[in-house]
């Protein structure tokens, strides 16, 4: 267990470091001057220069990288150029929208996909299987923003059941907040659920073809018992792999979905920050998202070890 864990954490750390260089280098070449952006169209050149000085934009690249990275390590993400508040505060404000959204979507997609996959696998070739897999093909093909559009049209505009967007804040109560997150979460979750259901089904079918399933059947276990007690756990590895990969897609998806539903989450923050050239925010949020992906994948790898004793070493 230890060597495997150490190795994974080590590679994760290297990946993070490389990623930080990529992020920083990438953003340094973004055209557009944040200072001018902040002051607007008719600002004088003096004012812009003064602001550049204030924001430390005149320092050499390597210095800015070092101080950014150093700050990052101690949790100081710097100050937003545009909002002039600490980035960490911004991130915290936005994360309470994005994180529940991503988790809700993840929960919804898993809660839909795993049972569907299980059912389909155990009813292979039957009508229900065919319908479920047909629907999942469709689900995979639907772009989430289009789906979001249709959801808004039906549930918010036509039926007026759920808010079309916006977020009242958790202070407004859990229920209104959850209500606001529901449609976005569905829009994010359904296409993901479609993929996950397919993976679950095919992973289960693969496992059901293994020798040990036959052994278990020879013990007198019924088909369903074998599915639950033996096949499911073995099939979890590919399912977890996809879940890990999906998390990255989910994060990317939130950028668009948060824009469709104008949710004040990290995705919209980053989109806004890019257009406003609030580079420090972009850097920090991208880095955080990348770090999240890396950590989630690390967790997925560790969960492999929990599922599969062969990975725990001797």
């Amino acid at each position, binding site marked *: 267990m230890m060597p495997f864990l150490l190795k994974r954490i080590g590679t994760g750390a290297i990946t993070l470091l490389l990623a930080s260089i990529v992020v920083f280098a990438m953003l340094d070449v973004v*055209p*557009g*001057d*944040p200072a*001018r*952006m*902040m*002051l*607007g*169209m*008719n*600002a*004088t050149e*003096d*004012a812009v220069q*003064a*602001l550049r000085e204030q924001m430390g934009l005149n320092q050499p690249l390597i210095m800015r990288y070092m101080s950014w990275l150093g700050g990052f390590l101690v949790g100081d993400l710097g100050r937003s150029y*545009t*909002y*002039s*508040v600490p980035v960490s505060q*911004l991130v915290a*404000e*936005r994360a309470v929208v994005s994180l529940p959204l991503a988790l809700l979507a993840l929960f919804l997609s898993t809660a839909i996909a795993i049972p569907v996959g299980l059912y389909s696998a155990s009813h292979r070739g039957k009508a229900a299987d065919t319908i479920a897999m047909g629907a999942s093909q469709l689900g995979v093909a639907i772009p989430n923003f289009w789906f979001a*559009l249709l959801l*808004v049209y039906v549930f*918010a*505009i036509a*039926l*007026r*059941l759920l*808010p*079309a*967007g*916006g*977020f009242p*804040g958790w202070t407004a109560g859990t229920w209104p907040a959850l209500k606001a997150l529901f449609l976005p979460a569905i829009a994010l979750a359904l296409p993901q659920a479609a993929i996950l259901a397919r993976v679950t089904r095919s992973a289960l079918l693969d496992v059901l073809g293994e020798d040990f399933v036959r052994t278990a059947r020879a013990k007198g276990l019924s088909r369903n018992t074998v599915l639950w007690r033996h096949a499911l756990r073995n099939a979890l590895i590919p399912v977890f792999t996809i879940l890990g990969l999906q998390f990255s897609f989910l994060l990317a998806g939130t950028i668009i979905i948060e*824009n*469709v*539903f*104008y949710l*004040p*989450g990290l995705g*919209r*923050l980053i989109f*806004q920050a*890019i*257009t*406003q*050239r609030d580079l420090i925010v972009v850097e920090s949020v991208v880095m955080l998202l990348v770090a999240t992906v890396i950590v989630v994948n690390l967790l997925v790898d560790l969960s492999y070890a929990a599922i599969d004793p062969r990975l725990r070493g001797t």
Partner: protein
Amino acid sequence: MSGVKTLLAVGALLLATSSAAMAARTDLVLGVVLEPPHLDPTAGAAAAIDEIVYSNVFEGLTRIDETGTVQPALAESWTISDDEKVYTFKLHGGVKFHDGTTFDAEDVKFSLDRARAENSTNAQKALFSAIENVELVDPATVKVTLKQPQGAFLYNMGWGDAVIVAPESAETNKEKPVGTGPFRFADWARGSSITITRNPEYWGTPVALDKAEFRIIPDPAAATAAVLSGDVQAFPFFPAPEARAQLEADPRFKVTIGTTEGETILSINNKKPPFNNVKVRQAISYAIDRQAVIDGAMFGLGTPIGSHFAPHNPAYVDMTGAYPHDVEKAKALMHEAGLQDGIKVTLKLPPPQYARRGGEIIAAQLRKIGIDCEIVPVEWADWLQQVFKDKNFDLTIVSHTEPNDIDIYSRKDYYFGYDNPNFDKLIEELNITSDEAARKDLYGKAQKILSDDAVVGFLFELARMNVWDANIEGYWVNAPIQANDLTKVRWKQ
């Protein structure tokens, strides 16, 4: 299936009734398109700042009302010396900032000196450039001496960039604005909304609303959805003109179309060949079908203009007839300029719909006279850098939303690259003229020159589509200045 429908319908009904208003409300959620970068109007040009704090949180010596006229504000009255160089302002008594500190002449001097200082980050330093000095007469009187007479000085003092701030709070106004206005800043959920609440200690007429939330909805589709679903009860600068017919037909809403100070133009880089040739610029003017642009990009919202002047301004001269849409004439002019084989140019478009959609239409119109536009969409940051600062562009579309800003054509080094000494002379004269009739005459001449030179492609005056809940009254229909003045807004009983 029908069972499901019934269920959904019942659910919808329940939700609708539960959210229905019972009595006169005192809260309001307002949609705004842009989130301000911060909330200090004296340290940034972004219209989004003024659209939240102007008149509501911050006040200046004067203020500009719905009709664009200068009204007294913190200065209850003023006198002007005969040489028009010395303005003596009499300040209101008993005014307090939101943090409890008292407002007096010190604050006025501090604000004006700060704005015109060497290291000032005021985006409109030009507003204060005429000021020679500011003197305290007594705590309720301030004397401002100008270097030379300035006709628009009182108007200038009504801008958001000229509001009065307190030295105690000036540095923190960006995050926590402290002014003298009828509303206090309450909360800013970044990316989401900004809330202001009633200031019970306000010196002037108390406001009807207890609380107003500005919800930030940049996306036209989301704005439409938010209005339709009742999430916001007002959207003063509604960004989706295509929804106009639908909203007008809905009795829940009142849709008004107001004017703005936004001259939307097809900017031309006058310094860059072949656009330094007036014939080419005129050809472009002939090629443009303004009405098609207004119909296509703005769904009919907007007034065609023929020069850089707002049609609702008394000094407006209608120049739209100067270049009627005439493709043949445009082609002939291109021929005269030796460009019968056509040219390839870039058309850089900032994010707003008027630019992106208008750009597509104009590109199609210009293609007909042999000008092949490559459309390059740019973010505002890029636009400011590439187009506005570096002047690296051929054509671009932008709305100049500052009021009475025809003087930009006389500014040296402005991004149009226009240089006409005759025009400059007119503007200089305007600056020192305060007689209304004379000013009007000068404005007229200026408009004529711009039209003759076809400096840029004048398209239309941006209209302001306001969508308000039918039960609300007291809001501005026009936008003579960038503001969402909520001082008179109230829910009907």
